[in-house]
């Protein structure tokens, strides 16, 4: 697939004997939206800090686009946009001036920065208040400004630490769309949140952290299969008439482990996604397929399952 | 005790002798003639004058002085030969333009237009003072001026001549041309002050020299006060000469007021030579004043510039 953006190996952080992050191995590629989950105090923020070099790892290594944030901070920071948990701005400056300062720190030419800032401000819906001092903005507005702030440089990797906290539903929608669009342009996103349904909507892959350990990692459906269905696919079909012959035939399909039946629906457990073969088989057996659904695993269920 | 008794006795004896002798004399005169008999009442010391007259007596009838002084003569008037007191009109005459007054005393203010003289009682006469003032608006030429005091009552009149001898003199004046006793100067720069020496008198003035007293305190050795010309050979009567005084405070003089004294020793005989105390106000040299102000303006400009350039408007 694409280029590796984040690579950590045995990344650990201990605070006075307390291990906040324990032997974390992450591998995230270009264009991914990686959901980073875990209960409070699991070590998500700490991990992000280490990814950026804002705190030094106790042991293990981090590579961001092939650079070590501790040794080559500028190369890393040039491509990483970070939205901290509690984002802050210069209260005495207005929204635009804050963004201008960020642009200046990124060595953006003035004209370019000006246009970019205008676009971003309208994207996050702050065009009306951009000339107000930051201290007069609401918490959600500041959060939106924080999101605008990370797009000022053209990041390859975006670390979002609870980006949607304090933002209204419409705003959340905008942010999620924006993030998804960015990912489509090849930007990698690490999305840390406690809002599981948001993560489920946009993330291609999630990692669940608990007490510093990465307890689960992968695509949501795979995690679901592993956690809930013992790693099986479960396909539910509705046919005109359920008979033993069909059940037997299905059982004979390669990869089908188990078929359970009721009046009109059959629940097929299988090793692989066998929807194609199954639908073909039903059609061939002169039965009419009324509906077919592969079971989706809600992230919530997975999360609960993993942490229990 | 016995001594005083003796003195007393002596005095009594003396009185007795005098009285007795007088009586004896009178008797003698009475014995002489009828006329003598008539005159027997006249005291014996008035015996000689037979005529009524008025006598003047002045101890110092000639006085000399400079033209700015006054001349006062003490004159005693005596009326002799009369029988009873009379009022005499007094008048004094001087040269034209002189003012002459007759007063009771030198310091008195009242003029005496007349005096009563009593021929019977007066022993030494009545004394008056004649004061003569030379005119003050012109310098009176040296020379003798005659003043005449007259006393008159009816046909009886008399006069005395008094002489005021005006001597030559010089009058030295030393003052600034403006009459002001302050001037301005700038540290390290020469400033000029004009003083005028003049001789308003009638005699020549020899050699006028100048000297100065400089401020005490800071850098006194550096104060420079020079006179140009630094001395005068002489001044004739009514001659006036301007002298340029160059005052140069030391370069590091702090702005403020300083006192300098200008002296001229015109007359070696008088210990107090005329002196002028001049207050010199040393101002900031305009150049440094402006530079000082310039620095402050520059600082403010720098502040504004810093705001303009470095602040965000």
């Amino acid at each position, binding site marked *: 697939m694409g280029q590796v953006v984040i690579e950590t190996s045995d990344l650990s952080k201990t605070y006075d004997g307390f291990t906040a992050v324990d032997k974390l191995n992450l591998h995230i590629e270009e264009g991914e939206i990686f959901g980073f989950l875990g209960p409070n105090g699991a070590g998500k923020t700490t991990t992000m*800090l280490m990814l950026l070099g804002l705190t030094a790892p106790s042991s293990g290594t981090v590579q961001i686009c092939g650079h070590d944030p501790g040794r080559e901070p500028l190369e890393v920071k040039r491509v990483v946009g970070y939205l901290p948990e509690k984002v802050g701005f210069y209260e005495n400056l207005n929204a635009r001036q804050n963004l201008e300062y960020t642009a200046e720190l990124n060595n953006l030419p003035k004209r370019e920065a000006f246009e970019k800032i205008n676009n971003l401000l309208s994207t996050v819906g702050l065009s009306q208040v951009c000339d107000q001092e930051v201290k007069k903005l609401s918490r959600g507005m500041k959060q939106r400004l924080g999101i605008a702030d990370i797009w000022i440089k053209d990041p390859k990797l975006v670390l979002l630490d609870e980006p949607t906290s304090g933002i209204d539903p419409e705003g959340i929608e905008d942010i999620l769309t924006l993030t998804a669009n960015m990912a489509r342009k090849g930007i990698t996103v690490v999305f840390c949140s406690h809002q599981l349904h948001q993560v489920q909507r946009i993330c291609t892959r999630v990692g669940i952290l608990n007490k510093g350990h990465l307890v689960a990692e992968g695509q949501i459906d795979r995690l679901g299969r592993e956690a809930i269905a013992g790693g099986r696919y479960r396909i539910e079909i509705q046919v005109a008439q359920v008979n033993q012959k069909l059940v037997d035939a299905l059982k004979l399909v390669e990869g089908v482990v188990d078929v359970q039946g009721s009046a009109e629906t059959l629940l097929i457990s299988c090793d692989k996604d066998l929807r194609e073969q199954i639908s073909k088989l039903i059609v061939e057996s002169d039965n009419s397929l009324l509906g077919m659904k592969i079971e989706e695993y809600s992230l919530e269920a997975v999360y609960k399952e993993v942490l229990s | 005790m016995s001594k005083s008794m003796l003195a007393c006795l002596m005095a009594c004896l003396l009185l007795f002798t005098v009285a007795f002798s007088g009586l004896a004399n009178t008797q003698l005169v009475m014995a002489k003639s009828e006329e003598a008999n008539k005159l027997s009442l006249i005291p014996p010391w008035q015996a000689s004058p037979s005529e009524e007259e008025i006598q003047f007596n002045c101890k110092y009838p000639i006085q000399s002085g400079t033209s700015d002084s006054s001349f006062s003569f003490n004159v005693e008037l005596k009326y002799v030969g009369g029988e009873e007191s009379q009022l005499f009109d007094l008048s004094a005459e001087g040269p034209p333009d002189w003012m002459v007054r007759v007063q009771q005393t030198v310091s008195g203010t009242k003029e005496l237009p007349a005096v009563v003289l009593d021929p019977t009682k007066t022993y030494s006469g009545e004394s008056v003072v004649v004061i003569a003032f030379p005119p003050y608006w012109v310098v009176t030429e040296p020379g003798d001026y005659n003043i005449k005091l007259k006393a008159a009552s009816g046909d009886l009149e008399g006069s005395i001549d008094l002489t005021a001898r005006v001597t030559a003199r010089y009058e030295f004046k030393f003052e600034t041309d403006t009459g002001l006793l302050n001037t301005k100067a700038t540290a390290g720069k020469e400033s000029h002050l004009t003083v005028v020496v003049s001789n308003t008198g009638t005699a020549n003035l020899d050699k006028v020299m100048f000297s100065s007293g400089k401020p005490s305190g*800071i850098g006194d050795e550096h104060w420079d006060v020079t006179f140009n010309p630094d001395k005068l050979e002489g001044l004739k009567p009514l001659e006036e000469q301007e002298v340029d005084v160059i005052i140069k405070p030391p370069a590091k003089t702090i702005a403020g007021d300083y006192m300098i004294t200008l002296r001229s020793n015109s007359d070696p005989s008088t210990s107090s030579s005329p002196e002028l105390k001049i207050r010199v106000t040393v101002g*900031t040299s305009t150049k*440094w004043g402006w530079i000082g102000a310039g620095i*402050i303006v520059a600082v403010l400009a720098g502040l504004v510039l810093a705001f303009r350039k470095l602040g965000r408007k």
Partner: protein
Amino acid sequence: MYTVFRKELADYLESKRFAMLFILATMAAVFAVYLAVQNIRGAVSSSSEFVFLKIFTVSSETLPSFLFFVSIFIPIIGIAFGFDAINNERASGNLSRLLSQPIYRDSIINGKFLASLAVLSFIVVSVIAIVGGLGLRIIGVPPDSEEVLRLIAFALTSIIYGAFWVALAILFSVSFNRAASSMLAALALWMFFFFFVYMIAGAIADARVPIDSNSSFEMIAKNAEIQGMINRISPCNLYGESILALLTPEIASLNPALMMISVIAAGRMLTPLNFTQSLLLVWPQIVTMVALATICFAISYVRFIKQEIRAT
């Protein structure tokens, strides 16, 4: 770093504390000049060549000289422009965001230090210039080249001293998470240096070498020497000695009693030192101040570089 410097400078220039301190310092300075000029005629002896410097050093009976005002104002300005440099950013959540920008971490602390120093230098130089200008305008005696040199040295020494306080305040701002605590700590330290060291020094010197009204000169000198040595642990004293010697050419020794002895016993003439001599006299003091400033800044630098930047 230049960007950080520019931004911080702009912030400082527009801050209320700059306006306040600038006006306050200027007022104190003008006041001091006014008093100095009132008393300068009496203070200038007939042999004095350094009339202009007197504007800065002459005090009235009731109020201290310009030097005293300066020595109080510089620590205050230094602390005011440093005590919240880092912890304020951290508390506001700015720091994480700032540090995720492509700049080296030290540019932030360097930029802030330089900006504070620039503002401080600006105030110091302005105030000295205003005093000089006013003095020039009032007394009308221009400074000669030596006096100008001495004034420049005075300004530089003041800036070095200010740098020490800025560095110290920044060190506290790195070490304490709350601006209020770092300010209090800095002020407490200043008070310690400014007042208590003098008291302690006096007490110790008197205990070691007791003196009274009929002590010999040697004893007095020894007492003063001990006092001086202890005082020198205080940067306030280092600065005080430096500027006094720089602006008073007549001072030939930093020990007043020794100076007196040298005049009375050794027959030294009371002639002023030339500039290099004065500078040499206080050179150790100046070097120590530079060293102190450097050490403070280095510690805060290292601390800041190693610190975890977490938005809390």
